[in-house]
């Protein structure tokens, strides 16, 4: 009898309790989960990609109107949120490292800080949305964008319809991004409960890793959204 089955049985008896039945070993399960998240992120790139494509076309067509509209959104909020998200990426990396090296307190702390930063981001986003709402810059029946000058072209005013396209894309893109943040917070809440129960060990911490991948992805989307939406034709 060749040894492979013996080895296989031996494996099974000493398997980690988190190993699902259809995987041969923990390595295979880890690789599958991680590849699964990367593939999912590829679909996300395409999901946002359609919007970026629409954005780039209209920005090229209506550059002046887009610049005028972009000028009315608060760059300070956007810059703060960028900093917030970059910090949260750092705490996510810390969380992954803590899980790998079995530092439970650091893991729990990093997860909590990450979530706090995420909530901060959403809070600032909410304030921004409120301002847009007050200013009648939310697309729809009450949208108004009269007499807004086009930067660098004195005496010219933005076409409200074209500005509305900017704001539509602004709300759809940042809205979908915020939705991803909310889902991310849900994932991290789950990770936190798991970490609290002490489920993660150096042998088994894939959820932290792939949850982190997701979080980083959502951050990266923002890294593109910020300059594209907030920094059109800005000059000091």
């Amino acid at each position, binding site marked *: 009898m060749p040894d492979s089955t013996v080895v296989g049985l031996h494996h099974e008896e000493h398997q980690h309790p988190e190993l*699902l039945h259809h995987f041969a070993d923990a390595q295979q399960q880890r690789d599958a989960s991680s590849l699964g998240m990367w593939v999912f992120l590829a*679909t996300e790139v395409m999901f946002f990609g*359609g*919007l970026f494509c629409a954005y780039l076309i*209209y920005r090229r067509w209506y550059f002046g109107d887009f610049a005028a509209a972009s000028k009315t959104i608060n760059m300070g909020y956007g810059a703060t949120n960028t900093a917030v998200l970059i910090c949260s990426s750092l705490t996510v990396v810390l969380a992954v490292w803590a899980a790998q090296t079995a530092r439970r307190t650091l893991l729990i702390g990093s997860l909590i800080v990450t979530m706090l930063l995420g909530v901060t981001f959403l809070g600032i986003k909410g304030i921004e949305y409120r301002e847009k709402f007050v200013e009648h810059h939310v*697309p729809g029946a009450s949208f108004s964008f009269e007499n807004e000058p086009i930067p660098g072209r004195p005496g010219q005013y933005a076409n409200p*319809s074209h500005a509305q396209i900017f704001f*539509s894309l602004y709300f*759809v893109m940042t809205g979908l991004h915020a939705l991803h943040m909310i889902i991310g917070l849900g994932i991290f809440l789950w990770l936190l409960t798991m970490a609290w129960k002490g489920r993660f060990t150096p042998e088994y911490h894939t959820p932290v890793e792939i949850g982190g991948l997701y979080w980083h992805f959502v951050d990266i989307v923002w890294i593109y959204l910020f300059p594209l939406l907030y920094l059109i034709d800005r000059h000091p």
Partner: protein
Amino acid sequence: MSMEIAIPQPVERENYLNKEYGVWSWLLTTDHKRIALLYLISITFFFFIGGFFALLIRLELLTPAGDLVQADTYNKLFSMHGIVMIFFFLVPSIPAVLGNFLVPLMIGAKDLAFPRINLLSWYLYIIGGAMMVHCMLTGGVDTGWTFYAPFSTNFSNTKVVEAALAVFVAGFSSILTGLNFVVTIHRMRAPGLTWSRLPLFIWAHYATSIIQLLGTPVLAITLTLVAAERALHLGIFDPKLGGDPVLFQHLFWFYSHPAVYIMILPAMGVISEIIACFSRKRIFGYSFVAFSSIAIAVFGFLVWAHHMFVAGTSVYAALVFSLLSYAVAVPSAIKVFNWTATLYKGSIHYDAPMLYAFGFLGLFTIGGLTGLFLAALGIDVHVTDTYFVVAHFHYIMVGGAVMGYLGGMHFWWPKISGRLYPEGWARLAALIVFVGFNLTFFPQFLLGYLGMPRRYYDYSHMPEFQVLNVLSTAGATVLGVGYLLPMVYFLWSMRYGKPASDNPWNAAGLEWKTASPPPTFNFDEEPVVTWEAYNYEELDAPHKEEVPVAR
């Protein structure tokens, strides 16, 4: 009583079907084989809904006057026929049923990589399907399956948003299936099963999954924009407000052209399996057939604008897209020529799956070659939005994809159900489908070439089109019988069919090396692959070698 108990019953092997009973053992299953059957039932349901709409369309066109239904109803009929057939039948058909069942079996895995996500994908499909049924029952949608803006966003007064959301949700089901397949094929292959030993069915599903993963999200975001535009009048697709409806078409076809390959590639995978088995030969040019699937997936993403030659795209862009569309014919032709070369000097068996495969070869070739007509700028302008286009894509999607699906269902039915279907009836059904299909759709090539536009309910100004339309409607009736027959005898065989052996076709491939129906975890012992794909020469040699397993 005691007498009855005393009679020894033949002990049935435990398999995935009889391991557990009860509704919840099905609705909460994570077994890819059970989920495949859940999909089979659901897509069959939608197939008959879509077929019912098709029947009404054909009945209306029986006479030149618009007498059976009025324009509004007719618009809804063809829209819902398209939406149901494409998003709720063709896209999930082979991948979600046969692919779900066979991918783990063919690569020697116990299940897909993410069994719970697999179940989630079925639930998403059901939620999307329920929304679509609700939409149809409460008024329907009349935009065509293409949801073209600005009609869908500004003018249609039907349930566009609900239909778009239904497609959106079903799209995520498709994405999750593709994700599961890619990860499973990368990470779960049995020891020894290298990429060059994979069945071509797996290569085809790998290519399909790539399209599902990279294309479907774009459709999802496009439909989101349509729904938002319709609700809030954003202006993104509205020319009055500076938006561009052609952008909608670009985004839509970026998914929906590759979606054609989501439908046809899995069928090509099925055909490769069937032709090798019933010619008793290794497939000719294995690596060419394998990589042509990948090539089709890649080229498929670069040709979308050939749907928009009359939509005001620049003539230079149109030239490039026309050229690239011709390029898709190369990998497709590679496949057809290699299948033909496989048949050459093979010992061909005319069993029902092979009859479907032959049907596929002929119909796909016609569909593919007429696709070249449409890739040519001059001819496309002449036949745009005519029945020529309708006939062309039905030759690909029905003549190609559905023939492949039915062929595959017959080929693997013994493995799925553990029973043999009645071969005589199956051959008859294959013949009826082939005849009925050609009778339905060949006249439409002629109609289109003569100038009959698609999506018209009334052609009383051109009564000379009636003869061809009558032929087409008659064909549709024959085709309907051809589709009902397999359903009847498959159901019959589940109870009365002869029990199938593990490998009734003496076919190569890991799925035939386990029991029929397979046990829940597919293989009693983890298989180790030491042979090349389609080793029919060895299988048919007098001294067959034992299948080595890890021992």
